[in-house]
């Protein structure tokens, strides 16, 4: 208890939960309600955001480095395991709190317009509120188990929202795939929790981190195993190699969901986790390298796939995976780079949410147009779009801002955050050359990012229009309730860099200083790194050049006149086809893992072991054996009473015989 607004922290998730309960009840009882649902759904989020701001301000005013921990009730008390339901307010969680409730509010508002016509309106908002509840639990939880509640809870909401239009098998499949992939990650999280508990005797963040230096040998097997298992959890939740394949499929959900869950908040939970446990990762250099390496590889790999996707949301999905990879490179680097990762997390939340919502506007418009002409073309395929800038000027402008931001064009937000990461990574390259490779991969990714994002913008908004003439007359800008959040996000994408203007530009690097208490203990464990100012400027130059090459290259190389609508487009050939088919990773997983397991389960375990060996040979075999013995003894039962009498008499005689002797 601090006696300030910080104490109100519990209200934020409680409001979201209240929204879920009310909207959920409405969804079951009066599915047609819309106004009340909108008011509740958006209202609780705005309320949570307001609380977030109040908490943040009060926390700043406290001027404390130590986290403020609230314990509400004893959840799982068994022996030495004492898990409380508690929240932790510190520098990291407040930033996450603001990002989640702020971006969440905007996306809720956008959804009011986007989902207006949907029959599952109330259900949608119920899920969305529930998601925010779990997300807040995730970022505010003061112990691993509480965080895990949020961790799995957001996965659940993701599952429900991806399969929101469940009448389509593809959507339902995608939801299930997301959940199961996430569960693979959760397996890692759980095992890591067990190891942490038995090593440090607690699962509270505070206790674990204060005991960690004594409980573990830095660089030892235990801490490495723990961090690797934790990172397995992250690869599931944050869609990294090898568990990333669910995220592109997750685009089956409504677009605002993709913006909120699959771009801005949930998928960054892994980054948050690594940042939260930065001390542990700092104690396990191998794990740090693995995190950074996997992040760098994922960033590049996903970017290559994004090059050849036609579905506007899939491009953004792979872009998200790629950017998440960036963040992992940062948090894997550890130390001060944590703040770079969180910085990129925040700016990415702004511009990627903007991109998704913008694409949502586009899809919304395309849908209405196709609806008006009773066409069944794919409203998300960029080959069917083109020249939309004339019809949707606001959306076009705002999405260009986001595109330039993600490409890293100065002075937009993405430039600062990306540059910060690259600087930190290259700085680590001096003591550990592996990081030079990661940085290089990051630069290549930056080039590809600029390229495919420009490609997306060009195909969607520029060039000749490829919708039919009938549809063209129905293409309009989305209503203000959808464009207004876009505007706010556009502003944030433009100016988000102000959060953390590095000292290089004589900024005050506010976020970096703000997050210092979080990473303080791990900085000491990491090698000293320093980059000369000249080198830093050179890096900035290279990054800007790379972005420029990407954008200009796309402008020059892509021929907008030769694109044909999706239904008549020829199949790709050669390497393009491999990229188009996502390196066939889904197919490989299916052939190597899914199918063998299903086959093993059905044919071997069930039909053979269970039904034939155990049930057939052993159980029913015993029954058959008994019956055979009975059959063999049947001749004794002649049914002739005379024989029975004789046998009976023999028995009597035998008894008498015994009596005689």
């Amino acid at each position, binding site marked *: 208890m601090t006696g300030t607004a910080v104490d109100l922290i519990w209200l934020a998730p409680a409001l979201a939960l209240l929204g879920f309960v009310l909207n959920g009840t409405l969804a079951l009882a009066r599915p047609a309600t819309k106004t009340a649902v909108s008011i509740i759904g958006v209202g609780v989020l705005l309320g949570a955001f307001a609380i977030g701001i109040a908490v943040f301000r009060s926390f700043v005013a406290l001027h404390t480095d130590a986290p403020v921990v609230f314990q509400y009730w004893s959840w799982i008390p068994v022996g030495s395991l004492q898990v409380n339901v508690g929240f932790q307010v510190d520098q990291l969680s407040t930033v996450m709190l603001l990002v989640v409730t702020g971006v969440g509010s905007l996306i809720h508002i956008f959804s009011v317009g986007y989902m207006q016509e949907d029959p599952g309106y109330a259900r949608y908002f119920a899920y969305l509120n529930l998601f925010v509840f779990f997300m807040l639990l995730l970022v505010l939880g003061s112990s691993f188990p509480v965080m895990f509640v949020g961790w799995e809870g957001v996965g659940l909401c993701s599952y429900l929202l991806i399969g929101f239009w469940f009448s389509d098998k593809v959507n339902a499949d995608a939801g299930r795939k997301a959940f199961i992939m996430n569960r693979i990650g959760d397996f890692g999280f759980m095992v890591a929790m067990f190891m942490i508990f038995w090593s440090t005797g607690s699962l509270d963040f505070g206790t674990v981190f204060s005991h960690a230096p004594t409980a573990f040998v830095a660089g030892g097997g235990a801490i490495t195993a723990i961090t690797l298992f934790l990172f397995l959890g992250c690869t599931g939740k944050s869609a990294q190699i090898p568990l990333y394949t669910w995220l592109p499929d997750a685009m089956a959900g409504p677009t605002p969901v993709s913006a909120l869950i699959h771009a801005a908040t949930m998928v960054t939970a892994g980054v948050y986790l690594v940042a939260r446990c930065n001390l542990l990762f700092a104690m396990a250099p191998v794990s740090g390298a693995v995190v950074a390496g996997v992040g760098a590889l994922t960033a590049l790999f996903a970017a290559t796939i994004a090059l050849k996707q036609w579905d506007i949301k899939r491009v953004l999905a792979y872009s998200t995976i790629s950017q998440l990879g960036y963040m992992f490179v940062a948090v894997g680097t550890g130390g001060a780079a944590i703040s770079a990762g969180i910085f990129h997390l925040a700016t990415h939340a702004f511009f990627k949410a903007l991109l998704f919502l913008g694409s949502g506007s586009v899809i919304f418009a395309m849908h209405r147009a196709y609806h008006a002409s009773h066409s069944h073309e794919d409203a998300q395929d960029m080959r069917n779009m083109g020249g939309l800038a004339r019809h949707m000027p606001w959306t076009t402008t705002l999405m260009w801002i986001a595109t330039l931001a993600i490409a890293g064009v100065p002075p937009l937000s993405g430039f600062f955050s990306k540059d910060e990461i690259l600087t930190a990574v290259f700085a680590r390259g001096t003591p550990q050359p592996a990081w030079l490779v990661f940085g290089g991969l990051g630069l290549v990714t930056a080039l590809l990012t600029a390229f495919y994002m420009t490609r997306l913008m060009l195909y969607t908004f520029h060039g000749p229009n490829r919708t039919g003439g009938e549809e063209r007359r129905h293409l309009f800008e989305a209503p203000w309730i959808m464009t207004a959040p876009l505007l706010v996000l556009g502003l944030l994408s433009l100016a988000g860099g102000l959060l953390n203007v590095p000292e290089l530009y004589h900024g005050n690097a506010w976020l970096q200083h703000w997050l210092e208490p979080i990473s303080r203990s791990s900085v000491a464990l990491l090698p000293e790194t320093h980059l000369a100012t000249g080198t830093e400027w050179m890096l900035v130059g290279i990054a800007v050049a790379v972005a420029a090459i990407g954008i200009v290259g796309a402008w020059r190389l892509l021929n907008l006149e030769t694109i044909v609508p999706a239904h008549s487009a020829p199949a790709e050939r050669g390497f393009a086809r491999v990229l188009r088919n996502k390196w066939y990773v889904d197919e490989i997983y299916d052939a190597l893992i899914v199918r063998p397991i299903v086959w093993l389960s059905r044919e071997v375990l069930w039909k053979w072991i269970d039904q034939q060996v155990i049930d057939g040979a052993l159980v029913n075999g015993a029954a058959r054996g008994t019956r055979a013995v009975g059959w063999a003894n049947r001749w004794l039962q002649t049914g002739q009473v*005379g024989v029975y009498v*004789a046998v009976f*008499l*023999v028995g*009597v*005689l035998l008894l*008498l*015989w015994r*009596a*005689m002797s």
Partner: protein
Amino acid sequence: MTLTFFWIFGVIAMGSALLCITRRNPVVCALWLVVTLFALAAMYVMLDAQFIAALQVLVYAGAIMVLFLFVIMLLNLGRPGPTDIKGPVGLLLAAVLAGTLLFQLRVLGGAQALPPSAIQLPPGSLAALQARQGIVGAVAGPLFETYLVPFEIASVLLLAAIVGAVVLAKRKL
């Protein structure tokens, strides 16, 4: 003197019993059995059981055997059936088993099977009892005192048997 008569009746009983089990015709069998029962009644008299002897004649030789004959005649089984007696194998089996049984009974029922003389009543005490209480009274005494409950149960049993016999034998109730 008594012993001689006892043996005479014993031989009659055994002989007619043998005839009873070997005659083909059921009516003949039944009549030979009646002879056995009469001979037994005579032996009961010599064993100081005059009342039982009377019952034997009345109940067994009279009632029960008449019942048998009735049934035989009712079912018209007065002629010997072709398969009524088993063949040589059956005969052999019966002879062997019965012979063994007889041997065992004789061994078991020999002198050592008799109650020790210490608990035996002095000879003639039964007759003395009958003289004191009367022939019927000597049996009735314990029957209605010591064995009252079994006696009642026996009556219930007979009642049940009557009902059961009626139910079974009647074509339609």
